[in-house]
């Protein structure tokens, strides 16, 4: 009986956490360079659109490429304004989120064929890894997932190693702590910030691509549903480390999955209470973890 509930719950937790982890890891890199990218929500929805359009043209592979490209396009505008022109990060990011939501919504209404409204979008299904997926309880959750999830299994340790063990990772963290010190050491803070922002755009785009191509199988207006902002909270909960961020994404995936679980149990409580769960969790965890600040010293400036 327990297994009957637990296995679908864990599977849903990992599945829901996957797009969140993509977006959060991208945001993590930007924030370690001192950039808070509130345009993340906009890059995610752009990624959704790019993913749907690409997949219609050439299947899931082109879909992911389109998602990444669309995310980077939004991010490059953000980089242009924030790094080159020197506008305020918060305001620019908010504007790009609104712009991303607006443009994708407009395309959805004006040219529904582009995003495949009413059509079947080619998607990637779960791939079971032989052997590992047969492990009781955790096997299905961890190893019967779409390809995107497996990509994260490789990316998270790689990012942790890169940030901690390479000069490039050190340079990234230095820019978030003190651009002046980084410049004095011969680095170019502007170039590093630009690359970090583009990476966050790439990852935000892939978050949107995963949503469309590995989960929903369709594009809908506003389907990013606040994931960009949740991803920013995940980075905070993850204490600005790759492993912590991946863990925090999993916690949020769990909160979403719990909501499906309660609904499927036919609880008499209003379902809106469960919908609120991930957001209540954000507030509770932020309060519980307060004071242990590990934020980059020059975040947002």
């Amino acid at each position: 009986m327990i297994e009957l509930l637990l296995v679908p719950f864990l599977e849903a937790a990992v599945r829901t956490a996957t797009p969140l982890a993509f977006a959060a890891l991208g945001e993590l890199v930007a924030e370690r360079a001192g950039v808070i990218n509130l345009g993340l929500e906009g890059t995610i929805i752009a990624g959704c659109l790019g993913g749907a359009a690409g997949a219609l043209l050439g299947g899931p592979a082109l879909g992911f490429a389109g998602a990444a490209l669309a995310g980077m396009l939004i991010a490059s505008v953000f980089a242009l304004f924030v790094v080159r022109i020197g506008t305020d990060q918060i305001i620019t990011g908010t504007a790009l989120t609104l712009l991303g939501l607006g443009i994708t919504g407009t395309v959805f209404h004006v040219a529904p064929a582009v995003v495949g409204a009413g059509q079947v979008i080619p998607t990637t299904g779960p791939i079971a890894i032989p052997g590992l997926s047969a492990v009781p309880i955790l096997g299905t959750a961890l190893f019967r997932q779409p390809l995107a999830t497996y990509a994260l299994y490789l990316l998270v340790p790689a990012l942790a190693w890169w940030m901690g063990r390479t000069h490039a990772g050190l340079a990234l963290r230095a820019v978030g702590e003190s651009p002046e010190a980084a410049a004095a050491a011969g680095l170019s803070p502007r170039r590093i910030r630009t690359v970090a922002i583009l990476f966050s755009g790439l990852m935000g785009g892939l978050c949107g691509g995963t949503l469309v191509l590995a989960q929903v199988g369709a594009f809908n207006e506003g389907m990013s549903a606040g994931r960009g902002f949740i991803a920013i909270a995940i980075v905070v909960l993850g204490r600005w480390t790759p492993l912590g961020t991946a863990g925090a994404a999993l916690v949020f995936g769990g909160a979403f999955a719990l909501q499906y679980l309660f609904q499927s149990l036919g609880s008499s409580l209003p379902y809106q209470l469960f919908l609120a769960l991930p957001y209540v969790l954000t507030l509770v965890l932020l309060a519980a973890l307060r004071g242990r600040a590990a934020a980059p010293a020059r975040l947002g400036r």
Partner: protein
Amino acid sequence: MSELALALRDIHKRFGATVALEGARCLVRPGTVHALLGENGAGKTTLMRIAFGMLHADSGTLERDGRAVRFGHERDAIAAGVGMVHQHFMLIPAFTVAENAALGGRGHLDRAATAERIRRIGASTGLAVDADARVRDLPVGAQQRAEILRALMQDARLLILDEPTAVLTPLESDELYGWMRRFTASGGTIVLITHKLREALAVADEVTVLRRGRTMLEGRADEISESALVTAIVGEGAPRAEEAPRGRSSGAAVFTLDGASWADAQGVLRLSPTTLTVRAGEILGVLGVEGAGQRELLRLLAGRLSPTAGLVVRPDRVGFIPEDRLHDAVIPDFSLTENHALAEASRLDRLVPWARHAAATSAILESYDVRTTGPAAIMATLSGGNQQRFVAGRERQRAPQALVAENPTRGLDVRATARVLDAVRDVAAQGGAAVVYSADLDEILAMTQRVVVCFGGRVTDVAPPLDPADRSPYARALLGLGA
């Protein structure tokens, strides 16, 4: 004769309307400690930032080891074997010493190897520092050693040290001097930016003196007399006819410091225990180079700081003209009337009497010769001199009996300077007490009865010399040479 390690010739540099360097020259021979001397704002740091690629000269030439070079960025200078230890350290507090040292490298980051290299260089130079310690946990002396080590790890053979002993204890300073001599003995070159004359004479082989962006004196340290250096640093300063009479006032005490001291949040003592009385009818002059404690002294008197130990007795209302008026005295986007009302912004018990503030503002515009369209003008639209006259007038109006002025004529032209100084004189003339700090020795001597000098956080009363034209006692105290 060997080629020069570093040669800066005919360097000009302006920041907006301010001329920082006007044909400055600095020629540094290899294997020497070269002291770059001068007052605040003489252009020492600007000149060396140009040598390090942080700033670009408007005109002039730069040579490294006899070859003409152009440093567009710090990394160009680093590649040419030049390192700089800044007055405000360029270390990242959240990083370890090893991480800071590795910054700017490429490829794989081998922490163990970096830490080992720091230990090795530390052992061979005597600059020991814990490679795995976070910089924010280290005392300033160790932070400085870490910064020097970082430059050495980047293979710097010419090291620019900007006021390195400002943050060090005497013992740490001696260790640093020892290392400097060893470094130059092994073929390295050091440029030592300092305003401490004794330090320069003790450790330097050669000296360049800058004054107002020009090179005033250069030569071997053992061939230049101390008095020639002092003259080159502070200028001749022809005695002025209108100089104020020296001596003490016998009026009632207006300000009294009784063993008052101030330490910052890190517990560093910025102002040593000071006992001082300023009496009615008196103007006390304060001298000091940057960071010598005058900033804290003035703020204790003005009530902007509370003493961490000891006692400060001062009137309820003290006018204060801070050095940075745009940050500390006015709100640039507010109108003059609004800025006038700010002085009473802490009163929350009633509505703001705008009509009264507008009338008072008009009175200031009239009597302090503030040239603008009227009380409704926005502060930011006024010139610096007009802003400062407004601040002087407002503070005089607010507290007629006590005024503290911090470098009140900085950046002002002759006319504005005269009006602001009149405001200070008026206080004493009307039976109040004024304290004024200025970077300009002549200005202080011209208007004050009594002078104290800050050096290293200590306040020293300087007895007036027998010959009123003799500036050397003040200059010596300013440069830390004692009376």
